[in-house]
């Protein structure tokens, strides 16, 4: 293990850890501006995290070990994923081979699994309502995540995201139809996985609540870790989308390159944020059950990508 690899690893992991809340802050601020509001500061997510870290933890009467300790594990899972996929630096870093693309998808599922279990331990009606909703869509979400990851794997014949990233840098491969449909499918999935689908709320927040219900009973440090974890998750999935699907170019190598990559990623993220801003503010509100149709379209798109690739290989 060389010092270069160590420094590149530190840059990538710290970059993910420290900058992920910033993008959420920027998106919220720009969204407020588009809606004619002044909006919160772009640093608001950081203020929230600091505030929560100082608050006491409220433990629902029936909850116990999983509720109290689950957030540490969820946060660690997202942190581990930040070692394994190209989210800042374009070459493998320390521990990258721990899981491949598919293994990474299973780690995301593990985090989701623990979030459901810790939420259920609170034995709250509102939480159970939200868990019920989250689970209702997981069959489509999980299948789409797998097929999207595999869609790019099949194009290159390997399940290694770093190889795929280099492969699609060529314009011919980038504009290959299976890659294009997988890109659209992944973007739709990213909107769902990061809770950015506009749902009909009908005035009561619980009516359209899915993701937020899982942290409904949390407070203090537990809530801080779960919120921070969700920022990291959003960053990880968004960055994979940018680096392997939408904008695979521009990242530099070497220890200095790794630091400059933080700036490159910032520019890429601005593109993603602007696209998302347009989508979020122009898309009509969904009814809850329409989420299924939305995900089904994403799954079909990724499936089309797979079928085209396999038939093309034959």
């Amino acid at each position, binding site marked *: 293990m060389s010092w270069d690899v160590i420094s590149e690893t530190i840059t990538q992991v710290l970059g993910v850890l420290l900058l992920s809340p910033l993008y959420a802050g920027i998106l919220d601020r720009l969204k407020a501006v588009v809606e004619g509001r002044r909006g919160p500061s772009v640093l608001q997510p950081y203020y929230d995290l600091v505030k929560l870290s100082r608050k006491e933890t409220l*433990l629902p009467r029936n909850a*116990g070990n999983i509720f109290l300790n689950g957030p540490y594990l969820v946060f660690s899972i997202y942190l581990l994923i930040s070692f394994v996929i190209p989210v800042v630096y374009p070459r493998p870093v320390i521990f990258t081979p721990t899981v491949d693309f598919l293994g990474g998808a299973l780690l995301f599922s593990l985090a989701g699994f623990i979030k459901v279990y810790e939420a259920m331990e609170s034995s709250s009606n509102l939480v159970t309502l939200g868990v019920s909703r989250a689970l209702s869509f997981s069959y489509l979400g999980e299948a789409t995540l797998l097929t999207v990851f595999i869609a790019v794997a099949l194009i290159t014949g390997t399940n290694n995201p770093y190889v795929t990233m280099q492969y699609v840098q060529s314009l011919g491969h980038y504009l290959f139809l299976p890659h294009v449909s997988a890109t659209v499918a992944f973007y739709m999935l990213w909107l769902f996985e990061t809770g950015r689908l506009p749902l009909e709320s009908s005035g009561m927040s619980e009516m359209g609540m899915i993701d937020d219900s899982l942290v409904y009973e949390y407070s203090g440090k537990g809530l801080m870790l779960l919120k921070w974890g969700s920022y990291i998750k959003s960053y990880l999935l968004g960055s994979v989308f940018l680096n392997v699907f939408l904008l695979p170019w521009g990242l530099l190598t070497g220890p200095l390159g790794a630091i400059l990559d933080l700036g490159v990623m910032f520019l890429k993220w601005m593109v993603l944020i602007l696209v998302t801003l347009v989508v979020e503010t122009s898309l009509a509100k969904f009814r809850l059950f329409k989420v299924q149709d939305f995900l089904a379209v994403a799954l079909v798109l990724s499936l089309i990508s*797979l079928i085209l690739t396999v038939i093309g290989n*034959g």
Partner: protein
Amino acid sequence: MVSDMYLQIDKFYLEIVTLLTMITALALSLWSARASHVVAAISSSLFILYGLYSGEFRVFYVVSGLVWLFSSTFSALHDRERWYSLTFSGTLLGIMITLLSQNYLEFLTGWELMTLFAYASIGVYRREWRPGYTFLAFGEVSTVLLIAGFILAYQETGTFLFHTLTDTLPLWFTTFGFTVKMGIFPFLVVEWLPIAHGNAKPSLSSVLSASMTLAGVYGIYKMMSLCPQTQALGGVLILIGAFSVLFGALYSYVSDHMKGMLAFSTIENNGAILTALGSLELSADPVLKAFAQFSLMVYVVAHSLAKTGLFLVAGYVHGESMSTLSTQRSFSLEIGTTLLTASMSGLLPTVGGVAVWSLLETLFMESISVGGILGLIPLLAGVMVGMGEGFATGAMARFTSFTSLVRPRGGERGRLVLLIGVLMPVLALLSYLLSPEMAGAASLGMFSNSLIPSGYSGGSFGGISPLYVLIILPILSLITYLASGRRRVRTVDPWDNGSGRRLTYTSFGMANNIRLMLRFVLRTRKGAVETSADVFWRAILQLVRGYVRFSRAFSRAYMNSSISWYMIYMILAFIVVILVVFL
């Protein structure tokens, strides 16, 4: 050479002793249930030892032995009925004879013994014979197909011994015979297995679900090793298996019967195992075949042991409906069930995670390796397996929530469940031993042999390191815990909009979104409560009713005590028999 001979002799004596011990357990059941279960546990331990000495089928023996050991131990602690211990040890003896058989006749003897004792056990427990009859009926359909396949094999080799065959027809017949026993899709019998397994005692349910269906897998694997490779069967098995994964998991998700939902989950797991068997048969690439074999073996281990643990959880619960059951949770049950369901949901770093990962990688590599239209079969199967895993996660979350997480705390119990739960990550580590290859990446901090790589002749595909996930996650969690500082905790009531009510949301309600969203598939009927029907079971019933109507009409028209018609039948039958003999 000499040591090999001694090993063979040792194995022979061990086999005899193991069988005799199980027969003793059967005899002891007439005197004392507990003594019978204890001796059955000893016999199971000997069988594990025997399995460790064995070669190609080692995994099947060791896993079966472990399932019996856990189930017998649970029965020794909780079951006192002598009739039950008789049928329980009889079922184990039947499966043991099946696994140890050296020829088709021994195999069938064990198979029938297993079926009859299990049938009696289900009937005795429920004092209701319909589930038992259902089980027996499908068991005999399975036996008929097996006999047909074995006769064809005998015709070719002229012996009942397991000899290599050149024809694939015996494999086709026996495979469908075994899949009936596994509750799999080709006969559209998605419901018979839950009816039977859901109506047995927890320890027997675990044996039926984990070990009896494993005997079916063993049977297919054994016949595959005797017959030439057939890609057509491979493709069919992959599609049937993946379809069973999807629908088994879906019905498990919407089922509100506690053991029924676990039995549906068994169909899902068996579907995945069948998919792995199909991959093995489809691929001509030796590197990919070795990886598919790894996937199959890991799935066998993961499903059998996790399902055993989950059925034993049912033994600590009063009631059958997930919505109305009553129980108390303990640390052992909560953590044990969580680990078991994590494995059943196919999550790393448990053995179930390694199984799902390896199966999906196999399917996707196969779609590249085979390519073209044929390559679409493993591809579509992979997507169906992915969707099935989503439902499976939901079903397992519901199971854990309502058998443990939301229940009030009680006394400490369920240590056996915790033990099996802890095995899930441990077995993920042991899965390295089954892997055809191991690798490392020293420059990236991964020491040698820490990775399980996946690959095919076209090159390497991917890889995972369950060991590193198991090491890194606790370390990162500890660092996070220490970095976030001491927490102040205050206990409060959960917020329910000030209603002051406790949890009123039921397990049934939790699955209702899916009942409504997939109402066309599930045939959901709207009423006072939402209910859904098994479309496959309905199809079978309609088929049966149609046949009954046809046979009544036929008998009234042509079998109305007319001597001349009977003469015509006899002549026709005679001609058919002559034709069959000559052909």
